[in-house]
């Protein structure tokens, strides 16, 4: 299996594609072209792309675009998608108001 650990490996030039303008992450409005550029900037994992561009950091937390980002990385680096880890999942499952999250009862005797 090809390794992506050497971050200086030659992945070829970034060739623009006609659909680079389509939006991949709808919450944060990140395009396919921006994601492909990030890969060529050295971001080889879903977590790195997310931290670099904010894709998957919006309201749905990547539940929609996670797989798409993964397949874009796989294609650009010429590896199989199964080789790439998904982004870390974080609580809460759905956005929760601070007053609700903070409202857990505290009993001080």
């Amino acid at each position, binding site marked *: 299996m090809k390794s*992506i*650990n*050497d971050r200086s490996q030659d992945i070829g030039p970034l060739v623009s594609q006609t659909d680079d303008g389509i939006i991949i992450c709808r919450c944060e409005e990140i395009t396919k072209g921006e994601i492909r550029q990030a890969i060529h900037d050295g971001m080889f994992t879903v*977590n*790195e792309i997310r931290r*670099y561009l904010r894709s998957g950091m919006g309201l749905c937390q990547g539940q929609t675009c996670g797989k798409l980002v993964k397949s874009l990385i796989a294609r650009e680096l010429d590896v199989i998608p199964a080789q790439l880890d998904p982004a870390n999942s974080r609580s809460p499952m759905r956005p929760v*108001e601070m007053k609700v*999250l*903070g409202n857990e009862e505290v009993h001080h005797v």
Partner: protein
Amino acid sequence: MSKHSDVIIIGGGIIGNATAYYLAKKGLSVTVLEASKDIGIGGSSRNGGGVRQSGRDTRELPLAMWGIKNLWPGLSEELGVDVEYTQKGNLRLGKTEAHQKILQGLTDKAVSCGLDVRMINGDEIRAINPYLSDEVTCASWCPTDGHANPLTATLGYYKKARELGVRFITESPCFELRKIKGAIRQVVTPDAIYEADKVLVAAGYDSRKLLATVGIDVPMMPLKMECLVTEAEPPMFLQMLGTAEADFYGHQSKHGSFVFGGSSGFEPFNKDNGTPISSSIGASCTCRGIIKYFPALADAKIVRAWAGWLDDCADHVPVISPVEEVPGLYIACAFSGHGFGIAPAAGYNIAEMIADGHSTIDLSALRYDRFKPKQ
């Protein structure tokens, strides 16, 4: 792939990445070995983004002040990535007389180092930040403090260093340092042995285990800290905020979300069945703290919470130092929860220390052999 370079850096956090960048700028060949799959997976991607001088120990204050003056303002341009550096001051808030005392003590120390920080009262506080509740009665105010985006800063240094030819190898957990003829020479990973005349260990808490393989120890402990972030809100304020009791700290990011860090007090005792976990009480507790200071944020929605480890030093100040007894070995760890703000200055000065043998800022107060037992 060549296994030899001028310098090997162990740890692809912001300290390792920034040092790699400044070394490459000086023309040295550098290899960065990162244990995990992701560059910047450690504290560097998990912190609260504070770029502060106020509240700093006087031993690291010169480095913090120098970085804020000389590196942070131009960093986005230099790295070609928006690090969202915002220099609109830091308010450290208090509600009680005990808080006032803590804040006054910190302020007096910082003033003695030449930092512009002063105590202000409730009205002055609300003139700077009108969203704070009336319970807030005192604060220390440092107008030159601020915040930045830790994710883009950490990965920005990585991107730029990589462009300059620095070799980054992920999934390379180093487990042994080896000397040849008394000097550092080899770094061993499960897949390969790398060689250099100079090695920097910048692996956070895990530096300890690695340094032990050449008989060096830095007294530190791993300490868990938790953070949370809200959905994007309309712009409210630009300052960095903290409290005298450190119940929470945070800021509103350029994106509009509020990033806050806090703790329940139970973090060191969270369940750990081989995998350390966060407790559900952490985020709830932080929210309660925030709402007391910022009633207006009660309806803001939390979208994500996470935790990170601090490498807390015995005296809560970093170790940045050459190790003369192992020639060629350098240490940069034990940042004790405030290594993000000083990272650019640290990286710059560590690169000088490694390449030139001396640095712009005197780092001798941060030496690895400063720890002495009680008399």
